[in-house]
Structure formats: structure tokens, C-alpha cells
């Protein structure tokens, strides 16, 4: 159990911190070494300008993970506030439910492209676009949980025992919602990374000079037919590995916080 939790997290953080340490200046154009296939001096090969693909991939990973993290955080926060609003009054609940249905009825990618395009793309456009498309799923879960716990006899009783709204929020509602929020966060994270890569690949996301995985993949399209497979293969696999590592961690983490530990602590005392 412990190993299942720590191995993916440590690997993930190791690759991420490795990518942070890389300076952008170390990726230099070296036309004498262009179009080289993978070797010990260039693990992932070089591109048509002689840039080292290993460094470029790590740079891209750094950007993708940052975007994923920021987006997941923003979406979860937005979901929490909307579900809170829905719990106040049934009219507000109808509005929030209607918004959820509206956003769920549109394909993610279409809305994402629209929002990102309107905001002019770039880091800001992508993050806002991802945030505005990834909140409905977690809001739906949190809203249901919130409505359910409000109806529980022990919560109604808390009011009659003289406890105010904030006390109930802190002691009844938040401890109940927090596991859901954490699970929601970990599930949005890889989703957001993949969508960022997709939208950048299509050309509506990050601009071409930024070293994002999506940019690398779309550029490599032109060279794939001439046999330069390493331009797309290694960045793609690295992105996949990062997503799988995080999902591995997320799944174990989910099981870990959902487990009933009441008996454990009782018998250990």
C-alpha cells in the first residue's frame, strides 16, 4: 500500500523537478547535429535545427504539469463554490444544475477551443479555457454530496444543539466533502494535461515558441513522413508516462482515503 502510493509520486516529482532545473538557454540550435536519431549523446535524438529533443521534452513536460496543476486547483475551487451556492437555495440549485447540464452537453474540446480562441490563446487562455470546461463533473459530485449531508438527521440536530452555520461547515460539511474534492482534483489533473496537449496540437492553445508537448507533436508532423519517428515518439511516451504515473498515484490515494480506519485505530489503542 505505502509503496503503491510513494513510488509513482516520487517518480513523478523527480521528473518534474528535473524539468524545472533545465534552463531554456541550454537548448541551443546546432545545425551540425541536426536530424540525428537517438544515441547516447542525444537520448531522444535531435530535431531539424539540431536541438536536443530530451531537453525540449522535459521543458514541455514542465509546462504541461504546471498547467495541469493550476487548472485542477482552479476547477476544484470553482466546483466547491458552485456546489456551495447550490446548497443555499433551491432556485440557485436550479441555476447551477442548468449550468452543469449546459456545459456537459457540449463536447469538452469544442468549448475549450472556443474559450481559448476568444481569450487569444497563450498560457492564460488555455488555463481559463480548461478551468471553465472541467468544473461540471466535480461540481455535480460535490453538489450531490452537499445536498445529501444537509438532509442527514445528525446535521439537522447540530442546529438544534445550538451550533451555527460555520461550525457545521467546519465540522460536518468540510470533512465530508474533502475526500471528494481531493479525488476530483487528482482525476482532473491528467485530464487537463491531455486536453492542453490536444488543443495546443490543434493550434488554438499555447503559441509555437513555447516548448509545450502539444507544440512539439504538431511540429513533428511534417517530419514524420521522412522517417524521423523519434520527434513524436519520445515526447508522446513521456507525456503518457507522466499521466499514468499520476493516475497510479491518484487511484491508490483514493483507496487510501476511502478506507474505513475506525477499527484499526480502535484495536491499536
Amino acid at each position, binding site marked *: 500500500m505505502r509503496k503503491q502510493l510513494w513510488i509513482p509520486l516520487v517518480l513523478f516529482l523527480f521528473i518534474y523537478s528535473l524539468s524545472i532545473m533545465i534552463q531554456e538557454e541550454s537548448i541551443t540550435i546546432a545545425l551540425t547535429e541536426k536530424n540525428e536519431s537517438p544515441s547516447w549523446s542525444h537520448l531522444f535524438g535531435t530535431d531539424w535545427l539540431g536541438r536536443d529533443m530530451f531537453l525540449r521534452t522535459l521543458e514541455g513536460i514542465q509546462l504541461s504539469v504546471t498547467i495541469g496543476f493550476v487548472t485542477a486547483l482552479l476547477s476544484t475551487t470553482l466546483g466547491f463554490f458552485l456546489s456551495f451556492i447550490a446548497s443555499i437555495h433551491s432556485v440557485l440549485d436550479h441555476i447551477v444544475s442548468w449550468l452543469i447540464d449546459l456545459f456537459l452537453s457540449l463536447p469538452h474540446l469544442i468549448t475549450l477551443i472556443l474559450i481559448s480562441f476568444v481569450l487569444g490563446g497563450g498560457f492564460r487562455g488555455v488555463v481559463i479555457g480548461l478551468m471553465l470546461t472541467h468544473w461540471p463533473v466535480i461540481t455535480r459530485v460535490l453538489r450531490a454530496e452537499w445536498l445529501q449531508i444537509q438532509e442527514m438527521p445528525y446535521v439537522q440536530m447540530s442546529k438544534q*444543539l*445550538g451550533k451555527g452555520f460555520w461550525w457545521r461547515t467546519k465540522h460536518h460539511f468540510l470533512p465530508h466533502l474533502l475526500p471528494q474534492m481531493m479525488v476530483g482534483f487528482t482525476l482532473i489533473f491528467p485530464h487537463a494535461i491531455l486536453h492542453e496537449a490536444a488543443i495546443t496540437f490543434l493550434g488554438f492553445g499555447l503559441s509555437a515558441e513555447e516548448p509545450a508537448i502539444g507544440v512539439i507533436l504538431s511540429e513533428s508532423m511534417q517530419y514524420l513522413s521522412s522517417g524521423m519517428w523519434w520527434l513524436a515518439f519520445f515526447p508522446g511516451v513521456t507525456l503518457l508516462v507522466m499521466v499514468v504515473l499520476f493516475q497510479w498515484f491518484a487511484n491508490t490515494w483514493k483507496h487510501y482515503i476511502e478506507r474505513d480506519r475506525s477499527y484499526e485505530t*480502535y484495536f491499536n489503542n
Partner: protein
Amino acid sequence: MLTISNLTYHIANKGYLFQNVTLSVQPGEIVGLTGHSGIGKSTFAKVVAGYLTPDEGTINRVQNKRQPHPVQLIWQHPEQAVNPKWRIKKVLEEAGPIDDEWLERLQIHSSWLKRFPDQLSGGELQRICIARCLMTRPDFIIADEITTMLDPITQADIWDVLRQIAKTESIGILAISHHYELLERLTDRTLSFETLSKK
């Protein structure tokens, strides 16, 4: 004295559940309330204890802000009335600092305090709920079928203690039950909810 006058409550699209119920309970008195299933005894209890707002009528005891309600309701199912994720200690502390006197009188073992609700039996948990209710120092208690799911011995135990407490602390108890014989033995007077809520 708890005075309930002309209490009326209706359910949306279903008409009146009960109308013009008038009832009073003296401090230290145990009043029984009986009647068929589904005629609104529990809803009546919730209205009096402040969980629901009546359409008409008045109750002379209301909750002050951030104070416990002077009329406390004890629920039929104790396992729904406590947060399943809390230890018993925290459950009791929700009503205020733990008073050992009540734990002793209700025979609550101090080792239960660090357990979780699902590690106690129904009768034990119901006693926890009663203790929590008493720690708010209520003037009146509504006991809504509080011993229905317990065996006769536990039932007798709980009512013995509760009756004693009612007399010594002069807390008025409104006991709701289907079990007419129990109410006959236990209470000072027993009323039928059908007669009370007659239109």
C-alpha cells in the same frame, strides 16, 4: 410549562397533516402520545422541537440564536442521529463539555468515548444520544419512539433512568409510541394523537 396551541401543519400538494393541535406539558411530567402510523406524530415532534416551521399556531418555547433549543428531540434511529465519522467523545462534545454525572447515570462506560458509532450497539448508542440531549440542559424532551428497536430489558433500563431524571431535574417528557401498554405504565397521562388533531 410547554404550551402548544392550535398547531397546524400541511404537506405541499397533500393537504393538512394535522390541524389545531393543543397540548401542554408540565415540568417533570411524562405525557404519552399514541396513534396510528402515518398520522403525523413524528412530524408533530419535529415541529415542536423546531426542525420544521408550523403553518399556524404557537409554541411557547423557541430557540435563541446560538443556544440549544429548550425542547430537544431524541430520534427513533440513534445511528442516524450521530455523525458516523466522529468518535463518541466528539459526538457528546457537540452538546457542550462532557458532564460525567450524566455518563454515570446512563451507565455509559468511559471506554466507549474513543469508539466510533458503529462500534456500539443500538441501546448503547441511544443512551449516548440521551446523554447528549441532557447535556444541553433542556426544559423538555420529546422522545420519539426511542426504544422501539430495542429488546424489552434494554427498553426497561432506558425508561427507568429517563423517568428518574425527569422527576429529579423536573424535565417534562413527551413520549411518542405505538406501544400503548408501555405508555400506560410509564406516563402520567396518555393522549391519542387522533383525538388531538381532529378537525
